[in-house]
């Protein structure tokens, strides 16, 4: 064991709480190391002095003074409790008065207000739906149908004729150029 380890375990060594092997090692170190032995003796002697300090006793009137203070403290508590209860009572009374005033105010306000007119219920019936016959709105198409051609190709043809003509004219112009 070195001195550092001895110092680490010194607290338990003085308190006599070390395990058997550790205790023997510490004792061996004390026997070998003069400086640690000196430090150990110094601490033990100082502790002995401190532990033997005479005890001081409470003064003769300690109990009386304590009783008086306890009584005063109880009175304070009683006073505080009474005050707290009074404060709670005052708050409750204020809230109750406010509620009562509110209720009275609301009641008065409602009695002054004109009442709503009561009207007889409105009875209404749905009108019957008006059926209209389907009529054709394009007589020109009907006319073309009677000519023996289908409507759609005829319309396309009629639209495309000038375009195709123009196209053939353009091609012809290109060829001649």
């Amino acid at each position, binding site marked *: 064991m070195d001195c550092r380890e001895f110092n680490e375990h010194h607290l338990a060594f003085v308190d006599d709480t070390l395990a058997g092997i550790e205790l023997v090692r510490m004792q061996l170190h004390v026997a070998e190391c003069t400086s640690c032995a000196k430090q150990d003796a*110094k601490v033990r002697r100082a*502790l002995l002095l401190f*532990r033997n300090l005479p005890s001081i006793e409470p003064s003769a009137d300690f109990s009386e003074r304590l009783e008086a203070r306890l009584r005063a403290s109880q009175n304070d508590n009683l006073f505080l409790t009474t005050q707290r209860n009074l404060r709670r009572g005052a708050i409750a009374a204020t809230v109750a008065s406010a509620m009562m005033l509110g209720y009275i105010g609301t009641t008065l306000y409602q009695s002054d207000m004109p009442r709503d007119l009561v009207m007889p219920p409105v009875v209404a019936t749905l009108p019957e739906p008006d059926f209209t016959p389907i009529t054709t709105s394009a007589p020109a198409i009907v006319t073309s149908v009677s000519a023996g051609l289908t409507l759609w190709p005829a319309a396309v043809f009629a639209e495309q004729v000038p375009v195709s003509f123009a196209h053939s004219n353009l091609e012809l112009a290109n060829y001649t150029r």
Partner: protein
Amino acid sequence: MADIVRKRVVSVEGATVRERLQAMDDSAVVTAFLGGEERAFSELVTRYQTRLLNFVYRTIGDREKAEDLVQEVFIRVYRHLHRFDRSKKFSTWVYTIASNLAKNELRNRSRNPLVLFQTVQKNFQDEDRPLQFEDPTSRPDDMYRKRHLREIVEESVAKLPEHHRNVFILRELEGKSYEEIAEITDCNLGTVKSRLNRARNSFAEIIAPYVD
């Protein structure tokens, strides 16, 4: 005649209750007090007043103030005993209150130089008073030596830093376990051991020149 008999019965009953309380452990006395037995509180005061007074006095170094603080401890105990967690040790709780009050006192003193001055002055005046705990039949030189030694020890303790001194007194004077000290001072076990080790070594160093 009947009154006298009744008084005797009451006093015998009272004595029995007191004896019963004396035989109880702290936890049972606390339970008795919470159950409405007012005399149980007196029993707690009797058990702890001297121990707490010594502890607070060694911590703050002012006897009168120490008495005031111990009274404050008991007032707090009286007020808050119903809140005490009975799964824990009563003594630890009481010492925690005392330790906190002593710490507050030291803090107030350090903040208020006037209080510090008054305390120092009062302690000087106290030194002129005759000693109460020394045998008056012993020889004057012996009395002087003892008194001188006691003063040196007290001064040496007072020189320790506050957090070291607190742990040191709880261990060396009150014989508290490390675990209890940890709980009272609200520190972990390692801190308690380290502070105690340092406090012991410092105290030994401070006092060594006077006793060698």
